[in-house]
């Protein structure tokens, strides 16, 4: 076993452990943190596959942005864990049966017998100055430009849907109109009133 294989198995073991803990841990904040760990180790495995750009993006986008947001949501929402666990034992037999079947099937099919080196050739190792990012960029904007644009449309739909579902035009909401603020004159805000001078009241000591 060479060093590379050892590193791979190390990452894989941590990834499996983290993934398992995400669904078994009782505290949702811990679950989110274990998910971060899973993303980190997955990024490590991608690095070993020479997919440097994807690995770094995974850490930047998922760990840096998505999971932080997720942690905020988890902390702000008051999740009732007891209600979530309701009916766990009722569903367990069927779920366990389906899960075991799937695991057995995957174990049988996805072994080295189907994806071993004699069937799928090993990828060619690239030179040290090979730019993964450049290749990805070239492919995205040439061969894969159609699905890439479609992904952009999907994001546009997400924006439209999010606004349509959450925006409430309440009559009571207060907002500022900058144009009006700039155009305001002194006379609009301050009213000068001329009053006759008055004697302070006699009760004052």
């Amino acid at each position, binding site marked *: 076993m060479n060093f590379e294989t050892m590193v791979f198995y190390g990452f894989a073991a941590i990834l499996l452990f983290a993934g398992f803990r995400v669904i078994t841990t009782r505290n949702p904040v811990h679950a989110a943190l274990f998910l971060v760990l899973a993303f980190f180790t997955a990024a490590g495995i991608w690095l070993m596959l020479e997919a440097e750009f994807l690995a770094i993006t995974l850490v930047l986008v998922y760990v840096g942005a998505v999971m932080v947001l997720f942690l905020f949501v988890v902390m702000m929402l008051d999740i009732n864990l007891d209600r979530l666990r309701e009916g766990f034992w009722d569903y367990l037999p069927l779920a366990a049966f389906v899960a075991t079947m799937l695991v057995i*099937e995957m174990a049988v099919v*996805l072994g080295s017998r*189907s*994806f071993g080196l004699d069937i799928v050739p090993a990828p060619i190792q690239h030179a040290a100055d090979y730019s993964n990012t450049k290749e990805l960029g070239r492919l995205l904007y040439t061969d894969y430009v*159609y699905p890439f644009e*479609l992904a952009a449309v999907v994001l546009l739909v997400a924006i439209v849907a999010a606004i349509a579902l959450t925006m409430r035009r309440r009559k009571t909401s207060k907002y500022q109109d900058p144009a009006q603020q700039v155009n305001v004159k002194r006379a609009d805000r301050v009213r000068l009133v001329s009053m006759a001078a008055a004697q302070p009241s006699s009760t004052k000591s």
Partner: protein
Amino acid sequence: MNLAFTDVLPLLPEIFLLAAVSLILLIDLFLGKEQRYITYILSLAALLGCGWLTFTTATGVTTYAMHGMFVDDLLSDTLKLMLYFVVAVVMVYSRSYIHARGMFQGEFFVLMLFATLGMMVMISASNFLTLYMGLELMSLSLYALVALRRDNAVATEAAMKYFVLGALASGMLLYGMSMIYGATGSLDLSRIATVLQAGVANNTVLVFGLVFIVAGLAFKLGVAPFHMWLPDVYHGAPTAVTLFIATATKLAAFAFVLRILAQGLQVMSVDWQQMMMIMAVLSMAIGNITAIAQTNFKRMLAYSTISHMGFLLLGLLAADINGYSAAMFYIVTYTLTGLGAFGMIMLLSRKGFEADNLDDLKGLNQRHPWYAFMMLIIMFSLAGVPPTVGFYAKLSVLQAVVNAGYIWLAVVAVMFSLIGAFYYLRIVRLMYFDKPVDNHRIRPEGDMAVLMSANGLAVLALGILPQPLMALCVYAIQRSL
């Protein structure tokens, strides 16, 4: 690499629709509440423009564009033209319904057009990647449309179920696609077909992936045992959205299944035929028997949809030109009938009243004989009574199944259709022989009344003269597969 104009020419309808939706989105921003009808008219105009572009650029020759990710053939042109028509009818039917419920917003039309764009992408996809992107574009718009009445608890719950199960189905589909990719080394459907033709070493991986793909497709089509979301979504969604999901998406789902199974994995038909047989029989059984117990009209139609999708699978599993064209004829006519059935619910409902219970149909004949007659035709067509189009559609599917050598399947299908006829005919009884519960006058708007009459009469006319449409379906399938 240079992008020539001829490369994007087949995509012209898609590009036009995307530009039009973006423009409508912007224009809608500046419209007041009273001017909202401009959005509605622009949406219809966009569909009309798409129709014109698709019709004029149709060559009948199979053209690939965008590095083989997009295909423009006779099948896609035919289905797209039907899709525009169906979406336009959905919009006309929905107008007064959503107006009465405060949903007459720009987002409703924009999301509907985005979903239409997704369906167009699905219809003319020739790569797993574009198939999936089109599916997601459609599904995301649909989830939002179902949830659009966010203060309504039933609608929100339906949207949640739809979203979670839809995401699960997409996951299964992707997993299956990744397996097929692992075994064949390509995402391109025609390339996969060639690789499979030549023979692949590890057949187990292929079958493994196929199981996941078929399960994902079954989720999306709503066939048993993956049908649980369908009654809740149909029931909970605003009827205008239910109408959209029940009609337009079925056309796209048909194209989706046809592209994956018939164009990509035709060689493996022996494997997917068996899965489809089980699903078809289960769907027809569960759909038809459960529908009898329903008191809600929308729920009943949802279970009826499940049984009809089972029937559609029968046509597909014949796995030859006859079967595919019978299935295409079936889905097109089902869409037409579904438009009528759900449209009628909206025609009968009014502000603050949803005519979605079976009791609301009581005595319709006394209230308005003409619409009762239209409903009669539609129910007869769903049940498969001659001379409506539903009879001919069922007949052609059964012929294809018998020709493929599955006589027992045809017998089972006929049996369950007989059981199904019970609840369709119960509606007819309610309309003609019961006393009306509610005596509110039915006064639909002019364009809706005309369209509904045309819809009902078309169901009858196509039943008497099915040949032209059938010939079109056969021709489209022959030229494209």
